[in-house]
């Protein structure tokens, strides 16, 4: 079975985000990592491959500076990687690029994270599925494959929905789908020699652009309430904040 996992590179979760004159992310001192949800997708793909046989390919749209992140995915256990040499500025563009690769080289299972933790959009899974005319299930916490039957669990408001699906399909990973693995020394060593194919982008349309950035509005100073005055807190929440 052929698994494809789409990975993006994002600032580490502990990063303090600032912008350069409201026009771009200030990347100075920022450590970049594999998007955590993509890593969850990758680990589940590896688990399924170990159970069912096959190969796990990771695909990434990014420029040469992102290769350490791709090598990390190979160190975790992916068999091979494809890098499409372009800035991932727009989800439609990214999905189109990946779709072009998959049209020439089909996969049975295509996974993404539920969203990247930089732009928090979660668009690529649905777009890719539409471009490839495949079924899609997003924000899933379970993927089981038995023969040609696929069973997934997706998050819904106040619960989970069990969904059955045919192969091939696209799904996006939510926390709980798998436990990420820490690469071991053997993985790190072998990652250096695993195939990393670089392809140039096909001419693609961009439909959106982030034109400016801002920090969230600053909070007013915190009003302190004495620990033995909880009646006062309740009154403040009722009278002043008007939330209860």
């Amino acid at each position, binding site marked *: 079975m052929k698994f494809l996992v789409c990975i993006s590179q994002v600032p580490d979760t502990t990063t303090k985000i600032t912008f350069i004159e409201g026009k771009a992310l200030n990347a100075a001192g920022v450590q970049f990592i594999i998007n955590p949800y993509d890593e969850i997708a990758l680990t589940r793909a590896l688990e399924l491959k170990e159970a069912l046989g096959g190969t796990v390919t990771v695909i990434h749209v990014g420029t040469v500076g992102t290769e350490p992140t791709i090598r990390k995915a190979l160190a975790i256990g992916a068999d091979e990687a494809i890098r499409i040499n372009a800035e991932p500025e727009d*989800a439609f563009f990214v999905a189109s690029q990946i779709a072009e690769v998959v049209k020439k080289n089909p996969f049975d299972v295509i996974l993404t994270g539920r969203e990247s933790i930089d732009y928090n959009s979660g668009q690529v899974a649905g777009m890719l599925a539409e471009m490839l005319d495949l079924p899609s299930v997003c924000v899933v916490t379970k993927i089981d494959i038995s023969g040609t039957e696929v069973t997934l669990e997706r998050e819904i408001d106040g619960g989970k*929905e069990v*969904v059955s699906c045919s192969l091939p399909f696209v799904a996006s990973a939510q926390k709980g789908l798998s436990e990420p693995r820490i690469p071991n020394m053997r993985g790190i060593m072998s990652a250096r020699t695993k195939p990393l194919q670089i392809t140039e982008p096909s001419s693609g349309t961009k439909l959106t652009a*982030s034109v400016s950035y*801002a920090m969230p509005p600053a909070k007013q100073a915190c009003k302190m309430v004495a620990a033995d005055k909880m009646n006062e807190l309740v009154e403040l929440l009722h009278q002043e904040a008007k939330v209860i």
Partner: protein
Amino acid sequence: MSVIVFAENWDGKFKKSTFEAVSYANEIAKQLSTSTTALVIGNVSEEDMKSLGKYGAGKVLNVKNDRLNTLAAQAYGNIVAEAAQKEVATVIVISNTYTGKNIAGRIAARLKAGLVAGATALPSATAPFTVRKKCFSGKGLTDVVITSDQKVLALTPNAFRVISGEGTASLEAFVPALKDSDLKTSVKEVKKTSGKIALTEAELVVSAGRGLKGPENWGMIEELANLLGAATACSKPVADIGWRPHHEHVGQTGITIGPNLYIAIGISGAIQHLAGVSSSKVIVVINSDPEAPFFKAADYGVVGDAFEVVPRLIEAVKTFKTSHH
């Protein structure tokens, strides 16, 4: 030209996020001097569909088909796209709920329309069409310009107020082109988290962290939540060590929420946690450490031992409820 809004229902009922989306769509229709059409897929009563007129929908297209009573993303995406074409819609609005997350990308790709997923405000301009959303999991905001003729906006629940007035929408049956191949997924079972308020749609949330010292101490958190009619949540470390289920974890890699009130008990306020709750309208922090970073993001703070403060807060809420009813 028009604005179309996918009016989501759950077992035949609309929720607040649906009314927010219709209100939002109608405000955009006003910006563009056009009208709003709502699309309903499934079995909703005629009365409920007509009532979408209160939020600005002039017309409701209704797709009734027993195969579509549960989500099939491919079919739903196609239907929304087809309805958008039929109505010559330039803007397509959906809620960024779990259903929305399943269909937004599909609709956008099908229409080759730019998508802003997680819009938090009305377009700040319509030429160029510019919409604000959060980025870096709430650590920043970004203005996104959509350059395509058609635009898809997925509105963050709880970010836009419901605007209601008078009005009744007209109803029109809509029979979309539906192929068997659009239904490659089917719902086998729904597992409801029993009797609890869903975290993503809760207006009040009571959350606790490692300061509670052990899973056996969550009784008072649940009691406070029940009293307030709030959902319960937790921090990442607490979910990771198994004190609380993962679906309660709010934060950068958990659920992002924006309730009216977020009460954080025994949570220090790491940057990843703040990212998930920063859009809460009011934040109360209860922590024994006066230096806890969470106080910097709080509206109200209480320095004290949770095991003393929370029982007092429970009593105060009880007193409040008796005196106000």
